[in-house]
């Protein structure tokens, strides 16, 4: 069923336009890379703060308020551009190991974020300069590893 749906996706006008054009794919890919640098860069800032490795004079809550709107805006751009790239050769990408690995890692990063938001954050000391607790450090460390893996898989997709 999925294969049929992917084949249909691949033959939509927008998907064929991308796969047939010489400049559309690289252009959308450039937007995708720019969006990912913003997602990964901003999440890294939060993760390093949770690990207690940087920005220690800033309160975690204040940093989250400042950075997360940018993270979400750029994540939306990354998903939109990534979906277009995927549509241009949906059946091919779906069958590759790095694409599947990337989606699994993205889901894990989402789950890690939910656990942090609903379970860890309220127990994390809010004052500037406070040491993050063990759970917050673990959240930050897991997030950092997952995003490195996501970028790695993303680049790997282009070589398969």
């Amino acid at each position, binding site marked *: 069923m999925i294969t049929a749906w992917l084949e249909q996706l691949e033959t939509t006008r927008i998907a064929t336009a991308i796969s047939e054009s010489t*400049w559309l794919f*690289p252009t959308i*890919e*450039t937007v995708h*890379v*720019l969006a*990912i*640098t*913003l997602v*990964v*860069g*901003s999440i*890294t*800032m939060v993760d390093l703060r949770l690990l207690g490795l940087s*920005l220690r004079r800033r309160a975690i809550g204040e940093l989250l308020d*400042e950075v997360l709107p*940018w993270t979400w805006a750029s994540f939306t751009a990354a998903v939109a551009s990534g979906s277009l790239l995927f549509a241009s050769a949906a059946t091919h990408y779906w069958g590759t190991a790095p694409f599947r690995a990337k989606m699994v890692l993205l889901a894990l990063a989402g789950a890690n974020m939910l656990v942090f938001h609903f379970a860890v954050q309220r127990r994390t000391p809010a004052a500037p300069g406070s040491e993050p607790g063990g759970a917050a450090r673990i959240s930050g460390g897991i997030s950092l590893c997952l995003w*490195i893996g996501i*970028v*790695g898989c993303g*680049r*790997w997709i282009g*070589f398969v």
Partner: protein
Amino acid sequence: MKALIHWLGNTELSNFIKTVTWIIPGVQVVHILAISVVVASMGMLDLRLLGWAGRGHSIASFLSRFLPWLWGALLVLLLSGAILVIGEPERSLGNLVFQLKMALLLTAVCVTLGFRSLLLRDLAGGSSDLRPEHGGAARLVGGVSLCLWVGIVTAGRWIAYAG
């Protein structure tokens, strides 16, 4: 340039990088992670210079917070970039888009260093932050730097497609 590309492409190191299939993709991943650090930290700094974010904090504090990340990540970018160039010199050095990227990079570094020396002069003159009359220069530098970094990332991706 052709001679350099030819010589570099035939060095033992270049052949080694080409024969081990995972080196180039692996180094590209490191390169992308480092550019993420640059884009995020320069994005924060440039938005502050434009007055669009972090106005409650001084420009001097933003510079001292984010410039060390820029220099650290730039070092990683130069090292990983050098490995990619040695592995595939004909794909990079002879490519017009690559040359444009290097020119944009040099400009961005000069703009940042120039602004830093302007701020340091104001601080040395007894000011607690950038002098208010230099606000226009700060906004200009923020806008130019932001455009330059977007251009650098764009050119980087297009090396694979054009030039």
